[in-house]
């Protein structure tokens, strides 16, 4: 048997006292699509960074075609034929496609002038080689995320053509774009490229992968067939069988907390791509978890942010009531006074102060309560932090480290714990488990259900249908800013999807 295209044996990597990789063996064959799975912190990013030359291993060996190699920097890895496509695509949005493809290796005319027509011609040829019709003269900023992904692949392949490492390439793609991306990946594999495909989405694995390596705690937890049952993959991922991801539903709900009746949000100025709530009627009662479903652009996020006063400028019309009393929800302060808290879908961008300690982030929403007369009370702060750590199993159990150093799941727990500290009566959640691993998801669901049992009302928007169906008591479907259907939790996915798309089930 011939040596694999790329292999790693006994890879160890330490960061200070943390051992990110504890002896990992991994191999990739030519023409293979090899899925690399693992929860956050399992070590898959570290492994990827070793292979792409970002880090050098402390122990272990990397081999290409059976011959040992060392990469001191990404350039050396590229020279050996390994290309990496990171989640943040390294494209310059303000330049056109051709300029991006040739960035740093521009084609020149004699005399030092850029040969733009030649670059565009060559770019077109390369794009067409994977059957992609993108005009090379278009600005990257004007492309969809899916198209950008493909441009990044073409760019990567133009300087390294044997191994392609893709870090969660489908995270931001629509279903159609994912399909197209998979076609391209299959085509590349058929031409002999080895592809390492890193993903959180278990359901994609059987569709695209030839082989699956699951990592856990810096080790390889198992190598399996892509068609292994999902339960088996989950067991490898979390190290224990995942009996019940979703907690049991509530038996009964209390009195109405938030009620909207034919409520519309009139924007001060129209904004393309921002779907304002239009004639929405819905109710969230005490102790109830209500889901907001809808396709992209149906106005889920917009409804939540308009309720919390963080959306665009405008005002509510129709009936908006909290506790059956009409309220004017026109600012963050108004919402907070009404007992409403909000967790954004963008915890790094607008949820957390990443460089600041976990403790300081946690107390941010109760800062008034812990600073009588304007002076911070260390005792009250410590009490609040202890309470949060008691409610959410935030790891590591150290409130003094920068929150940015935590895994996605733990960061999300911090954002939630922060808002819970403020004792809200109604919690608005936007994509509460985006980028969160399976274990932390289950924990977050359980905690939300427990909070609801204590009377908290929760309105949760999510693009993950199984999450809405599993977690929520009721699901309200939005289309073009309007509520078009309502189902009880546990409804089947197709019914909800049909309503979201405006079809009969």
């Amino acid at each position: 048997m011939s040596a694999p295209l790329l292999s790693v044996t006994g890879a160890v990597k330490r960061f200070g006292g943390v051992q990110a990789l504890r002896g990992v063996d991994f191999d990739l064959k030519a023409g293979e699509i090899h899925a690399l799975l693992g929860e956050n912190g399992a070590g898959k990013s570290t492994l990827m960074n070793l292979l792409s030359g970002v880090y050098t291993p402390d122990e272990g060996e990397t081999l290409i075609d059976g011959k040992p190699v060392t990469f001191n920097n990404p350039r050396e890895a590229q020279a050996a034929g390994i290309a990496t496509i990171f989640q943040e695509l390294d494209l310059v949005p303000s330049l056109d496609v051709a300029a991006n493809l040739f960035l740093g290796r521009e084609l020149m005319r004699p005399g030092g002038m850029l040969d733009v027509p030649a670059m565009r011609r060559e770019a077109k040829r390369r794009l067409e080689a994977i059957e992609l019709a993108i005009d090379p003269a278009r600005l990257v900023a004007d492309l969809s995320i899916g198209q950008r992904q493909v441009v990044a692949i073409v760019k990567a392949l133009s300087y390294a053509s044997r191994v392609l490492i893709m870090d969660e390439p489908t995270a931001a793609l629509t279903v159609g774009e994912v399909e197209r991306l998979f076609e391209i990946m299959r085509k590349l594999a058929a031409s002999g490229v080895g592809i390492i495909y890193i993903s959180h989405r278990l359901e994609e694995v059987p569709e695209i992968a030839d082989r699956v390596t699951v990592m856990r705690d810096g080790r390889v937890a198992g190598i399996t067939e892509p068609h292994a049952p999902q339960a088996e993959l989950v067991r490898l991922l979390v190290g224990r069988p995942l009996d019940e991801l979703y907690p049991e539903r509530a038996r009964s709900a209390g009195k109405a907390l938030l009620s909207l009746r034919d409520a519309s949000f009139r924007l001060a100025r129209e904004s393309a791509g921002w779907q304002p709530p239009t004639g929405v009627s819905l109710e969230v009662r005490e102790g109830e978890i209500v889901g907001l479903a809808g396709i992209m652009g149906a106005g889920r996020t917009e409804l939540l942010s308009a309720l919390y006063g963080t959306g665009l400028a405008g005002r509510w019309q129709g009936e908006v009531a909290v506790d059956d009393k009409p309220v004017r929800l026109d600012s963050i302060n108004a919402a907070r006074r009404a007992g409403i808290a909000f967790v954004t879908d963008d915890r790094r961008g607008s949820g957390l102060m990443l460089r600041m300690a976990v403790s300081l982030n946690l107390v941010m929403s109760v800062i008034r309560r812990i600073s009588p007369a304007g002076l911070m009370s260390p005792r009250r702060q410590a009490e609040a932090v202890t309470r949060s750590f008691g409610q959410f199993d935030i790891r590591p159990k150290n409130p003094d480290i920068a929150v940015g150093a935590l895994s996605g799941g733990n960061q999300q727990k911090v954002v939630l714990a922060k808002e819970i500290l403020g004792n809200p009566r109604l919690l608005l959640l936007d994509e509460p488990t985006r980028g969160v691993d399976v274990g932390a998801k289950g924990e977050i669901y359980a905690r939300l259900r427990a909070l609801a049992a204590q009377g908290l009302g929760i309105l949760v928007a999510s693009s993950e249908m199984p999450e809405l169906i599993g977690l929520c008591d009721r699901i309200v479907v939005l289309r073009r800013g309007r509520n078009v259907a309502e189902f009880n939790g546990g409804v089947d996915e197709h019914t909800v999807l049909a309503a979201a798309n405006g079809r009969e089930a």
Partner: protein
Amino acid sequence: MSDQKISVAANPAVPGTAAPGHRVDPLAIVVRFQSLIGLVLVAIGGVIFSPRRHGEILFLNPDNIANIVRAVSETGIIAIGMTFVIITAGIDLSVGAVLGLSSVVTASMMISGGFGLIPTILAVLVMGIVFGVVQGTISTRFRLEPFIVTLAGLQAARGLALIVSGNQYINISYGDGPGLAPPVFAVLGERLFDNTVPVATIVFIIFAAIATLVLNTTRFGRYVYAVGGNERAARISGVPVSMVKISVYAITGFASALAGIVHAGQFNFGSANDGVGYELTAIAAVVIGGTSLFGGAGSMVGTVAGTIMLGALANILQLNNITPATQLLATAAIIVLAAVLQSLVRRREGLGR
């Protein structure tokens, strides 16, 4: 594990740079105390390289030390204010010009205006605050970069100072009666406690102490970190972001006015053209002190140490008759070193390149 006791640092001077319990990153410690370490190193270097006279180390001569801390007190006061602004991820370029304006207004109010000492000082401090409030309001109201707004503020303050002074030095003469400043004002140029501690330095230290308390123990101080740490997150948490931003520019305005009053008292004149480049010295002291230009992290103690370190460094070089050109290069090297250390720590924390 789950019932493990959770300890909370009461007052982390540098929120977020604290390393996880038992695996402390030595580099992070170095950066946290970089300006103090730098100050110690500069002091040691000062002793080693100091010229000696009759066996006495001139660097350690009490007069020399008094000179160092006196010389840095004006930029130090400004750097204290600047620390607030930089922690919010802002910048204030107008400080040196406001110092000049304040020295001019101080002198002309007392000399040509016939105002008393207390009304003059109060008026100048209020002027500084108003100047900052205007800059902060313009910046937040119209969503302009503070860099641009305070660059305009710099020009405006210099212009106003030239108008007030008619581009003349306004000399301050002391005595009783109209056109004379009360003699007590001259105390700003003197030393207390057996002629050892410069009054300007006392002002600096008191201001630094108050600022440290405000930053570390008040709700407002926490808001300052929050706004710089993540403005959107702060807003969503109900932090009055615009108020905080306007306030930090009010603080730099106040600090610049205070430094301008000290300046007038030390040199016995007001001049529209004084304080040029102070904004850069102050920013350098803040950055060397470990405060991040990205916002959200920084410490007042660091700024004070950074300020004194820069002064001590200049002093050693002067004692050895090394040219100002070399001084500039040395300062440049230290700024780069401080910035590189911070960047390394950021990278280790996995928070961007």
